[in-house]
Structures are given as C-alpha cells and as structure tokens.
C-alpha cells in the first residue's frame, strides 16, 4: 500500500523517529514515507502526536532519535526550506497591526530570496499566482483581519504556495471554518492535488478533504496504528473510532453503507 516503488526519492522519510520537546518524546519509533504526488492524511485523537509529527518534519519539534530525511537529504543538512510550504494551525492570519493579503502572502516568498534581497517582478508574479490559486485575487489590498475565517486560512495557504513548494504541510487547515467555507477551501486544495502537489495534512475533520486523500496514517499515543487507504470509518470519526483503527483492514464494499457521518459521505470514498 505504500507507494515506494521506482527511483522516486521520498519527500519525507522517517525511520525509527522519536519526536518531541525537551526531554519528552511525543512521537515514538515512527517509520513514515511521503512520496511525491501523494496526499496523506494524518489522523488521530488529541494528544496522539499528529501535530508533533508535522512540527518535527518542519524542524519546530526536535528529532530525538531515528532519522529524518527531506528530499533525500538528512534534515539537519537540508537548507532548501522553500521546497516545503507550511500552513500552520492558526485560527486567524490576523495580527496586532493591519496587514494586507499581499503583505502576508509576500512573506511566504522570502525563503526563495537571500537575506538582503527584495521581491522582484518574478517574486511578485509568484505571489499573485498563489493568491489567485486560493481565489482571493480581488482581495490583495484587503487587511487580512477583515476576511472571514475561511478566507484567512486561504491566505495562509497562499503564503505557503508563494515559495512554489514541492510539498504542502498543513496542520488542521479546515478547523474552525464553517461548512460553506470548508467547501471552497476543499476546492482550493483539490485544485492543488490535481496539479500533483504533494500534501501532508493533519486533520481532525478530514471530511472536506476526502476526495483527494490517497493514504491515511493513524497515530495513537505517539505510535503509528494504521497506514493505508482511507477507510470510510475514519471520515468524521470520533476519537474512539480512530483509536479503534488499528483493528481496521482494507475497505470492504459493505463498509460503504454503515458509516455516513455528517454531510461528507462521498461516493468516491473507500473505492
């Protein structure tokens, strides 16, 4: 079930990885590969370590044991951070002082530039493309704080896209966004998936993202309990169901009938 064939270099490769903060290991002994073109959902209850996993990949939590490779390079020797687009878990993109959509998204372009370089024509074009991808081109000059929650999330996605990354790492991109905005957010992400952008998505509410997820990883208490196709039982699942995922096997046809959580039952699921 893992797409490990061929000569492809994994975008992310973890072996026996322990990740945590200070002396505390939150994720333990984890093997994980993210291959180019994959859209992987990381699921798990609160405290299962899914955010820590993402933060470890980004260098925001410490790798305490094992190995982490990014694009085939040891993480501590990997400096081409512009290849990784990060959408943090934030409810808003707002800040103490007003800043426009253009200003916030432009800050995502900086990883492509040297210390003293300013944004040139190419960079401004990339910023504009990123904003266009998330459908906010008419809001370039709007202060981010005046946008709705869903639009602010899209600004954060555009900021990640501005460096033209090879992989998007998203922490709870749909949390706290109302249903109608979740749909346009999901449409944005689907467009990216159609362009073969590799994605790693940590989410409680996998619902709107179901159609594009190619693989699911379920964590429980810092350990991997499941790694395989997304099962319908995982969609909109309560923590209890996710904890039970270790017992799940490949999706059967008859699973399709028994779980219809919320509004996100998708016929493409489990197929």
């Amino acid at each position, binding site marked *: 079930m893992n797409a490990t064939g061929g000569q492809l270099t994994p975008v992310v490769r973890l072996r026996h990885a322990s990740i945590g903060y200070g002396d505390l290991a939150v994720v333990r002994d984890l093997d994980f590969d993210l291959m180019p073109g994959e859209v992987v959902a990381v699921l798990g209850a609160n405290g299962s370590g899914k955010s820590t996993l993402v933060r470890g990949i*980004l*260098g*925001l939590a410490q790798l305490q044991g094992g190995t982490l490779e990014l694009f085939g390079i040891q993480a501590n020797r990997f*400096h081409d*951070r*512009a290849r*990784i687009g*990060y959408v*943090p878990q*934030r409810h808003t993109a707002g*800040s*103490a*002082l*007003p*800043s*426009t959509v253009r*200003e*916030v998204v*432009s*800050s*995502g372009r*900086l*990883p492509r530039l040297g*210390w*003293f370089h*300013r*944004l040139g024509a190419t960079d401004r074009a990339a910023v504009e493309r990123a904003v266009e991808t998330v*459908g906010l081109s008419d809001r370039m*000059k*709007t*202060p981010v704080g005046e946008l*709705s*929650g869903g*639009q602010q999330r899209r600004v954060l996605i555009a*900021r990640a896209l501005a*460096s033209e990354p090879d992989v998007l790492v998203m922490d709870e991109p749909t949390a706290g966004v*109302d249903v*109608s*905005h979740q*749909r*346009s957010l999901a*449409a944005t992400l689907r467009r990216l998936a159609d362009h073969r952008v590799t994605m790693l998505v940590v989410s409680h509410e996998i619902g709107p993202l179901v159609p594009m997820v190619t693989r699911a990883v379920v964590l429980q208490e810092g350990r991997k309990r499941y790694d395989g196709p997304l099962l319908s039982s995982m969609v909109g699942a309560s923590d209890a169901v996710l904890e039970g995922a270790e017992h799940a096997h490949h999706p059967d046809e008859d699973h399709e009938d028994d779980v219809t959580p919320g509004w996100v039952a998708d016929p493409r699921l489990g197929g």
Partner: protein
Amino acid sequence: MEILEFAFMQRALIAALLVGLTAPVVGTFLVQRRLALIGDGMGHVALSGVALGVLTSSSPVWTALIAAVAGAVLIELMRAYGRTSGDVALAVLFYGGIAGGVVLISMSPNGTPANLNSYLFGAITTTTTSDLVVFTVLAAVVLGSVLTLAPRLFAVSNDEEYARATGMNVLALNLLLAVLTAVTVVVSMRVVGLLLISALMIVPNAVAQLTSRSFRSTMVTAVVVGILTSVLGVTASYYTNTPSGGTIVSLTIAVFLLAALTTAFRRRLGARRDRGREYHPHEHGDDCGHPTVVHGDHVDFVHDGHRHAVHGGHYDEH
C-alpha cells in the same frame, strides 16, 4: 521664529526629528510582535548605563548605548532560551537597571535630582553638539537596517513560528530588532527621556492602526505622527517650561484619543449609511450551495427566502 535663534533649541528640534522618525519605525515591529513594553525595559537598563557615565565623568550617551545593547541581547537570549522563569528574569533585569541607575547617580558628585529628572523625562537644554552627531549616525543605522530587512522583520514579527519553519534565522532577526530598539532608546534619551521612550515607539502606531489598512501605511502614518508630535512637543516644552518627554508623549496621546474618537464616530456614521444592506461574512460563490437565479445581467443567490446580488463588497437585496 524666535526659538530657532537659540542653538540649544536647534539641537533639540533636530534630535526630536530623529526620534520622531526612528522610534515609530522600530515600534511598528514591536507592536506587531506584541512586545509593546520591551522598549520600556530597555530604557530602565539604559539608566544604569547613564549613571555609570555620570559617575565616571564619561559621556553618558556611550555608556547608555553599551548598557542598552547589552541588555537587549540578554533580554532576547532569555526570551529564546529561557522557559517559564524568563518573565521573572526580565523583571529582575528591568528593576535592577533602574535601581542601579538611581543609586549610582546619587553617589556621583555631579548627580543631582534635577539631572536624574532630565534623563528620566527628557529636557530640551541637554542635547550637545556631539550628542547630535552620535544620534544622527545611530538613527541612520536604525533606519538603514530596518528598511533593508523590512520584509524579513515583518515575517518574523507577523508569524514567528512560520518564519522558523521556512528556515529563517529567527534568533538573529529578533536580536537585530532588540539591538535596534536599544539604539533607538539611546537616540531618544535626551529629548524624550528613558522612562517615556517606549511611548513614542508605541503610541504613534496605535494612532496609525486606526486609520491604516496595510502594514506599510501603518508605518508611514506612525512616522508622520511621531515627527509632528515630537517637534511640536519640543516647541511647546520651550514655551510652557515643561519636561520635553512628558510634553511630547502627552501630545501623542492627545492625538491618539482624537483619532480614536473620530474613528468611532465615522464608524457609527458608516453603520447608519449602510443600514438596509445586508453584511455578513458568508461569501456567495459557485460552490456555496445556495441556489442561484439569473436576474437580468447578473446572478442572485437565494438565501433564507430572499435574493442576494453581489454589489461591490456586499450583497444587495433583490
């Protein structure tokens, strides 16, 4: 104008201009980082430096600069590596700075309550020609660094964790901002005084955020407010014989109150004008799920039994 005939007033006005220009620029990033009070602490630390200068009869501007920059680096390192005790460690440093300053000044033969007051609250008569040269160079360093690195300082102030995830050297940028803040404290010490410096970094930005829609325009507006209030404040201080720092800051706060009232008033007017239109955060679109009706040259979205037509940034009832 007669006040321009006095050399000390010319120096004070030039110093005020430099302060009004640099303090709000640094302050914009401090407010964005939610560190509005850090400049206050550096002013406290700088007082110890000033006192050492007075005690050893060397130039207090240089000793203040050394103390403030050292304090800034220490503060930033404590913030970066310290855990929960960092907050308390900052408090110790700040109060240590001011207590040490007061004690050292009183020990010095040249120290009087009057010149302590002028260091704390500013005085127009104290800026020397050599001070002015130093201030000009320091202000140029601050403005040059900030303008060169503005995009990066913005990224770090706006979302530190994101900046770190994208491989930016967050610690270096934070250290730089702290050092620039310390340098600004020293540029401001003659005219504004060490206890009130922070106000001129923060309050012009508080005014600017009321009227601005972007980070850049916030900074520009804050600089305009900063220059106007510091130059006018120094002038007023000459006529009213009050400490220049207190006068400048009172004036800045008056501007803030005026701006806040005007903004509130205009918002109310705006709200009245907009009655009858419906504003809500939901955005109609292709995939919003609301049924659509083609209505002449546009599309209405059916919403709770009535029809919404997109018109500018809002929806008209059709």
